[in-house]
């Protein structure tokens, strides 16, 4: 602790630059900015009657450079130019911890209550009745996926880049069983009920695939494991594309949407609204979907939390820390890894099945690598192993994606042909870079111990910064 306090004090001191030093820094900034901007911004290719012309944009480059230099100057003058305050760090961190303790205790229940009433809250925002619900369902399904992946990556420490494969298995299980096999085996009458029958089956099947992936990669760790899981994800997708008679390949499969225990959501006799004697409203289906995915997500949350306190969950965490020590303590690392893969995959299967029932259509398009990367990004940004952090990260990443759709008004100031939505991945990347700089362990680094002796006390990573990264 003493060393880090000294460190920050030293940094603060060194920021107290003289005007000459600031000038030198600004010149350096300008040079670097120009060097970066010349290849990226300076030249522009224009198609002109079949020929490619090169256009230069000097004013833009100079303008951007000026903006960067002025921005840095402002930072020098108002942000970085501070006298070092001795002892500030230690007292601040002490009070901050107290503040965090109280917030930490209430934030989970508060968010749960908010999540339960969210569909009604959005009804009061004009123009967002349907869209707000849609986004909530969308974000919630990513929260669930990330919670599932968190078991594999966050708890067991097995870097899985092919998680979307299990999502695909779940979705195709629902699609194929609902459209082809269940009617074939049990008659058409079963179709309205298939969601409830197939959901557990999809989970089981995905878990089976988790084990199938798990076996060959038992001896791999870290980057090697990441490559194999990445390949696995791609293999599943390519099989879905090419196994035409079974999966209909890239055409995809239209599937019936989920029903309310056999009652379809439609404006017809025998439907949900008809049965309960209420006027038909398209929103009913969205309310239903929201509560289904909320229930599934909470199931994932509760099960993970429970498992963490059981021997198997503790074994996962120990496995993440040190595999050799685990074996020496009598833990069967083979079965530990396989259960982590299987249970993580199972939740992926659940949400895949939900995805198909929500979308009414599945195709291999939906299960590309970028989905795995996004889910992993949510887990990492949230803080490996932190379930609360994942909620924040999912809202941040998926919410910002949706936000970019709302930024149409920015069109006015952007050059023609550039839509704000194209910047969304750029912003996620920027967010990740900022995270690495300011919160390298993710948004929430708090980890609740699974066993207490006398008094309850959380262990904050900020208090104990020297541990293993």
């Amino acid at each position, binding site marked *: 602790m003493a060393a880090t306090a000294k460190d920050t004090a030293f940094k603060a001191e060194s920021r107290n630059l003289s005007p000459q030093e600031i000038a030198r820094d600004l010149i350096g900034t300008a040079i670097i900015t120009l060097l970066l901007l010349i290849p990226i911004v300076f030249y522009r290719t224009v198609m002109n009657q079949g020929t490619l012309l090169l256009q230069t944009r000097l004013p833009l480059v100079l303008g951007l450079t000026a903006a960067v230099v002025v921005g840095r100057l402002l930072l020098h003058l108002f942000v970085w130019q501070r006298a070092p305050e001795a002892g500030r760090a230690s007292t601040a961190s002490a009070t901050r911890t107290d503040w965090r303790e109280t917030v930490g205790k209430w934030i989970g229940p508060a968010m749960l209550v908010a999540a339960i009433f969210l569909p009604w809250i959005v009804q009061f925002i004009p123009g967002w009745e349907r869209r707000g619900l849609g986004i909530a369902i969308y974000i919630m399904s990513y929260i669930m996926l990330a919670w599932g992946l968190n078991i594999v990556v966050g708890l067991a420490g097995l870097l899985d880049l092919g998680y979307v494969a299990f999502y695909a298995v779940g979705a195709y299980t629902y699609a194929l069983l609902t459209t082809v096999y269940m009617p074939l085996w049990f008659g058409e009458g079963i179709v309205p009920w298939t969601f409830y029958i197939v959901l557990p089956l999809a989970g089981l099947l995905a878990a089976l695939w988790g084990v199938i992936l798990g076996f060959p990669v038992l001896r791999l760790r870290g980057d090697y494991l990441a490559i194999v899981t990445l390949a696995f994800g791609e293999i599943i997708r390519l099989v879905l594309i090419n196994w035409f008679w079974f999966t209909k390949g890239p055409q995809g499969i239209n599937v019936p949407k989920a029903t309310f225990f056999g009652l379809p959501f439609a404006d017809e006799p025998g439907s949900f609204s008809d049965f309960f004697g209420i006027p038909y409203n398209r929103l009913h289906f969205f309310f239903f979907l929201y509560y289904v995915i909320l229930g599934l997500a909470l199931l994932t949350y509760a099960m993970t939390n429970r498992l963490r306190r059981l*021997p198997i969950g*503790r*074994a996962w*965490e*120990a496995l*993440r*820390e*040190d595999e*050799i*020590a*685990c*074996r*020496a*303590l*009598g*833990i*069967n*690392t083979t079965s530990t890894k396989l259960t982590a893969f299987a249970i993580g995959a199972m939740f992926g299967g659940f949400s895949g099945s939900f995805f198909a029932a929500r979308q009414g259509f599945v195709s291999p398009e939906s299960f590309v690598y970028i989905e795995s990367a996004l889910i992993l990004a949510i887990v990492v940004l949230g803080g490996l192993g932190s379930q609360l952090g994942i909620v924040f990260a999912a809202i941040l990443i998926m919410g910002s994606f949706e936000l970019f759709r709302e930024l149409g008004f920015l069109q006015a100031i952007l050059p023609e042909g550039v839509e704000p939505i194209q910047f969304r991945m750029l912003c996620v990347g920027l967010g990740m870079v900022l995270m690495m700089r300011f919160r390298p362990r993710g948004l929430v680094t708090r*980890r609740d*111990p*699974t*066993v*207490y*002796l006398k008094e309850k*006390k959380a*262990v904050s990573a900020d208090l*104990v910064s*020297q*541990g*293993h990264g």
Partner: protein
Amino acid sequence: MSDILLRGTGVETFYGKIQALKGIDFEVRNGEIATLIGSNGAGKSTLMMTIFGSPRARSGKIEFDGHDITQLPTHDIARRGIAQSPEGRRIFPRMTVLENLQMGATVNKMAFFDEDVGQVYKLFPILEKRSMQRAGTLSGGEQQMLAIGRALMARPRLLLLDEPSLGLAPIIVKAIFEAIRELNASRGLSVFLVEQNAFHALRLAHRAYVMVNGRITMTGTGKELLAKPEVRAAYLEGGH
């Protein structure tokens, strides 16, 4: 039940083509402290790991309590009643001290958890103060105590200790060896201790082996070896 708890005969271990153990014979009797001393790279830790089945011996035989354990997987060996405080401690840094101890109790399914935690805290009182702290934040000596405590949680019949004094201050080393002696004297726990710190280890040991280049070169009681001029010259120079 035989008097011999652990016996190795002609144990040979290879890393690829390199032979690390060249036919080792050793034994640990019930209720005694056996020690294995030797310099860096002699193969001491390899022998520890070979007893635990990782890597497995290519030839020879290791018996624990009369049963052949040479080909068993590591976790099965642990479940038979051998616990290990591995080289470099290998505690779980992001888990709390108490959670680390919990992991040690895996083999007996936490049946005696509260009682055993009490025992470990009695042996190493500092761990009780640290019990809710992340293990990675402990000092080296505390981590070593935790590694030994974690091994004890399994209620082992044989405790393997791989260089418990590594990188620790002399006063901590003394405390650790005192704890080992105490465990052996009061509970009759059999200990197989691998050490570079020959002076401390030999003073403690009922039976001692000296290993050079993958071979056992000398055997005797701790006191006998301590008195031998060649041992003194090779391992006790500079005085500990």
